[in-house]
């Protein structure tokens, strides 16, 4: 049975915790991978260490989920477009401790808008302390203002349960009716009981 490969993109500013988040889920060592790449990673493999973070989740059914960390520096934003091609969705990590997290969110939502409109986005707020309460509130408001379903949660990028919850929320956001019966039986996920 041939395996199917999926792609989830982690984005966010430098230091938001993308590498750690991918590391917390990946079944391989992030970046220094020797996995048998079979998509575009193969042709760019020699450059993965400098151009992106890369991890893989191997699923029980043989499928693989490739986890890509988009470079945070804006001068590499052209990588974002490449990485988001055919991606399942976007996990966006925003640091609560930066001067203007709403501006950061706005910028990334704009940059990844085509992907978000095609699929979904979940925002994880990292580096939280007491001020994070207001940050989450503000980020939710900004997403509501932009008409994007506001999926915003605190997350410790080092915590597998936190990152897994973000990814799980993303998956349900991509297809909220996964496994559901009834009027949406024709949806892409129909029949995949959870």
């Amino acid at each position, binding site marked *: 049975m041939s395996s199917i490969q999926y792609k989830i993109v982690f984005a966010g500013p430098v230091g938001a915790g993308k590498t750690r988040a991918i590391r917390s889920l990946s079944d391989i060592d992030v970046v220094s991978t020797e996995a048998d790449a079979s998509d575009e990673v193969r042709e760019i493999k020699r450059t993965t260490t400098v151009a992106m973070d890369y991890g893989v989740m191997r*699923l029980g059914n043989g499928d693989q989920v490739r986890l890509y960390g988009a470079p945070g520096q804006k*001068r590499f934003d052209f990588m974002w477009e490449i990485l988001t091609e055919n991606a399942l969705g976007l996990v966006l990590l925003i640091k609560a401790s930066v001067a203007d997290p709403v501006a950061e969110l706005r910028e990334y939502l704009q940059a990844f808008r085509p992907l978000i409109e095609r699929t979904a986005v979940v925002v994880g707020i990292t580096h939280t302390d007491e001020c994070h309460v207001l940050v989450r509130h503000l980020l939710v408001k900004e997403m509501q203002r932009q008409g994007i379903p506001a999926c915003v949660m605190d997350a410790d990028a080092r915590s597998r349960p936190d990152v897994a919850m973000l990814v799980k929320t993303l998956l349900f956001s991509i*297809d909220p009716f996964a496994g559901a019966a009834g009027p949406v039986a024709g949806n*892409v996920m129909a*029949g*995949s009981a959870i």
Partner: protein
Amino acid sequence: MKMTISLVGLSVREDAALTIFIGMSLKNSTCKTVAFRPGLALPPADLYIIDLAGVGLAQWSVKAEADLLTLLGGSHALLLNFPNNISWVGKGHHCSGRQMLACLSKPYSSEKMRGALARFGAGGAASAAVGPSLVCVAVPAPAFVSTVAFAPVFSVAPTLPVAVARLATAVAPPPLLLRHSLQALRTLFPELEQHLLLARLLDMVATQQPQELRLTLHHSIIVHPAQGWVSHNAAPGMLERFAQDRSAATMMSVRTLDCGQAQLRAGLMGAPRASLDTFLWLLAESSIGPQMPPVQRDAELKLSSMPGFTRIPGVDNLFLQLAAICVRLPQTLSSLRAVFPQHDPGLIARFVLLATASGLGELRLVTASQALNSLPSPVPQSSTRVSGGFFRAMFQKLF
């Protein structure tokens, strides 16, 4: 004909990224990296992309310009420049007539780079048409990218707006727990009134005013609904006791604060501020315990945002799924039960209760005929298709 592009003087990271970008953007091109060293004669190429700082020419001077033109040997080049470095603006007077040079300031966007490369791709015709004129032009700098062009000059196309405004509607976010939602919640779950602490807090939140709920002489809960935070100095055990003990809860008193007072009181208590919606969700959970409250009516729920599930222990997968649905489209209790017949209807009712009590849900009572008309609509189908077993395997992996 295949176009050869040489990257000169770029950092390893930028070189790698550009190699990928060019490989994917210009299929009809070959990209080579040239390790620069002084005195190097560049291998032939149709276009050089040169980091001016990387080849030691960050600042313009007569000698720097001469060195650059010597290095290029009459070939076209896209020069990558430091941000805000204007020393090369208006320079390049000595380039040959058919030679095209353009300068792109860092950090550049993919649109800018793509636009620049496209212009070079059509450069032969453009340069022939323009001729050897050496007029220098400075193009006003848009956000993040400033462009300086030499003659025969082109300016790199301005950034195209990436965002599609389809979803961007300026709407004010709904406040936490609207009063009509609270009324609907109480109609739907009359037993909620028996939980005095929760009932009192929900009343407070529905006013949208900062308030203090005094539990004892020394223990308070401060809520600021408009800013979405709560602060309290009660131990979890005390809150649990108040949540479940009517007699304890009868001692409580409430006072309204202004924003400054609320912050001051929270500061004086020395208690951290926490997300109000998560606090209310957990308190509601603690108040009603494991029981499934009987539901009196049907109602429609719309979530203003996803609950903070990373901070709510033991969240059922179904809750995640229901939240993902209701954050997009309003759904009635009956329609959700119809869509998820394999799940306990009480669990779905519990979700509606907790989501509304958290303040994130807007709840509205509906009649039977309204409920029939509100069966869930399919969500926009993703262009990314997944196999049938993917979700199951993914969730097994994640949990």
